[in-house]
């Protein structure tokens, strides 16, 4: 039994997921308070380089051919051994397609309590969780002596869990991982047709305020600079200025980007329906009474076209400089 905080590193096809860094940063606070270490747990095959920028005191690394790709069975077998041997104070998993496949199963297998959807831990062992899609928060203390927790992003930036110095790599071996009941057959790449705005993380949305079809190009320029995609409210699609696949709202798509920039959109209920889950809505409309300002996080009463021109200029300069 120890006061270490273990973090199950999530990686897919050679890339470490952001949630892994976020968990490492969160673990740091817990470990300091408990007087233990932050230990990254990396499972893979020929994957040791993935540990290079993890901010951890050490990384326990298991290399095995059956761990080359994620399989819930393989991870559960490996982690059962690791966790029952080490008995750390806490093990953190991402609340993701990888972490969620294994955390609950391990909770039952190991008889350890599990706390879901944490966004923060404090040095004295308290967790903060977000449920109901963020509408409700809970606070409690991580059960002693050992607990599992899943994490979702919530304020901690990935950079906080990254390190310039590679951590100490601690190779471990475990018993054979055969007779897996879950095996990867192959990957299917996403279709390259028109964008699916419901999965995009940066959306530049235009409404009537864009005035003409040509002006949409300005929005496209901004979208390109930010790595986002242009979408719109219904009237723009009705005009034929954008395809239906770009429509946000009741008759179109529901979106949940990291940033939703609403330009010249009044915020009729039919449109709001499509963005009700968006956390960061920034609205620009010359009408101060536009209902969009009731649900946006930030707003500005300037003309969207004037703003676009200036924004594009400023961002281009910033990128060059």
């Amino acid at each position, binding site marked *: 039994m120890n006061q270490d905080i273990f973090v199950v590193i999530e990686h897919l096809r050679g890339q470490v997921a952001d949630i892994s860094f976020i968990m490492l940063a969160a673990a740091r606070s817990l470990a300091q308070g408990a007087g233990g270490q932050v230990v990254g747990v990396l499972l893979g095959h020929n994957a040791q380089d993935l540990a290079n920028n993890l901010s951890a005191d050490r990384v326990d690394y298991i290399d095995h051919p059956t761990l080359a790709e994620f399989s819930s069975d393989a991870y559960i077998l490996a982690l059962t051994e690791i966790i029952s041997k080490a008995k750390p104070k806490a093990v953190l998993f991402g609340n993701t397609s990888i972490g969620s496949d294994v955390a609950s199963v391990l909770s039952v297998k190991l008889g350890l309590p599990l706390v879901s959807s944490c966004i923060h831990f404090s040095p004295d062992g308290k967790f903060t969780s977000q449920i109901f899609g963020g509408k409700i928060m809970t606070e409690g203390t991580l059960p002693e002596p050992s607990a599992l927790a899943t994490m979702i992003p919530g304020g901690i930036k990935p950079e906080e869990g990254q390190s310039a110095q590679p951590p100490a790599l601690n190779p471990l071996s475990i018993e054979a991982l055969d007779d897996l009941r879950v095996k990867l057959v192959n990957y299917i790449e996403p279709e390259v047709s028109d964008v699916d705005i419901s999965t995009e993380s940066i959306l530049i949305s235009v409404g009537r305020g864009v005035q003409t079809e040509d002006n949409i190009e300005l929005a496209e320029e901004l979208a390109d600079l930010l790595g986002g995609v242009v979408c719109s409210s219904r*009237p723009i699609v*009705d005009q034929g200025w954008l395809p239906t696949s770009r429509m946000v709202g*009741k008759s179109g798509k529901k979106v949940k980007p990291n940033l939703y920039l609403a330009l010249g959109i009044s915020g*009729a209920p039919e449109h709001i329906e499509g963005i009700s889950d968006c956390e960061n809505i920034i609205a620009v409309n010359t009408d101060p009474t536009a209902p969009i300002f009731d649900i946006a996080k930030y707003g500005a009463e300037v003309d969207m076209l004037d703003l676009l021109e200036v924004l594009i200029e400023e961002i281009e300069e910033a990128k060059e400089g």
Partner: protein
Amino acid sequence: MAYTTVPKSSTFSETFYSSLFDVTDGERIRTCLQCATCSGACPYGYLMDYPPGKMIGLLRANRFEQVLETDTVWMCVSCYACTEFCPKKIPLTPGLLTRAKEELLLAGSIPNELQDALENSQRYGNPLGESPRKRADWAEDIEPEIVIMRKTKRPVDVLWFVGDYPSYHPRVQNSARAMAKIFQALNVDFGILGPEENSDGDSQRLAGESGLFEVLAEKNGKVFEKYQFNEIITTDPHAYNAFKNEYPKLGIEYPVRHYTEFLADHLDELKTLLQENGSTRITYHDPCYLGRANNVYDQPRAVIETLPGVEFVEMSHTRSNSLCCGGGGGGMWLDGFQWEKAHARLSEWRVREAVKVGADILAVACPYEAPRFEDATKTVKGAEDLIVKDITELLVDAFVTN
């Protein structure tokens, strides 16, 4: 998701045809002349693979399944134009189109928007998916406080059935507030059901969900029974149609009037409340369910004419000839689906007519219309300055200010 379906039985067409005779006057379908007036009158007829006339042709050929394999049926907005103009008086809307929609619905194939509206109606008593507890929130700031039957528990003269969109849709809540002001100015003893009110269910019925209609009607019926009132007045022609023509079939019968009928009985009193509000040209759009479905044409016009300084003009499609705004009976919830096919909204045609006749104001009397027509003014050339208002709003705008 497929919105069309292949019925599995070989006798489907026959069975379907016979089921039509159960509708009032349904057997008239046997006397169809195949004149195609219905197909011509249908606003989306030109886009249907099988407009109403052809549907009957296929029924006679025992091949109705073919119709259901296309998306024809979901292009129908239940505007009653076909029914109105059929020389043989075949009840096409209730007796053919609604039944066809019902078949598709029973097979589980319906457009997403419609599915949401129906599921919301079932869960929350309104198609918008809003909390039933908030149904009377629109009335919060009204002074004096509006009587909500459950709280006040006393008999009233008029039970005002507000309706889904006037209760919840921000644009239409304005006309609800206007109606309240008018009732108060006329010293009408009225009350509303507030959170106890459920959707009247008529548009859901026309979209093919007769089961849902019955559930909603039963709920409303039980609530009506709890209270004492002399008549129901409603701001919603769909509710009007339901209470007048459909609820009695379920044993729920009360005297009911549309607000324009009520106001038409109080013209003199109304005039004393109004002052000139600038001279304007007003045209009026006959709602499908007030006009064609229930023959209420004169009363709304009489009410509009009480407005001083107003020049009243008719659009080219008027009275029984009116062009549906697209909301119809369930059309409100087929909007996305129909837009994909038509790339034209019925509301835009109507707004063009209003512009053509030089109107400053397009007056409406149905809750579906204000949002639909206002959206259309944004995209129709020359319509940027056209104002769309419910008759209640026009009246309140012209109230004498002391």
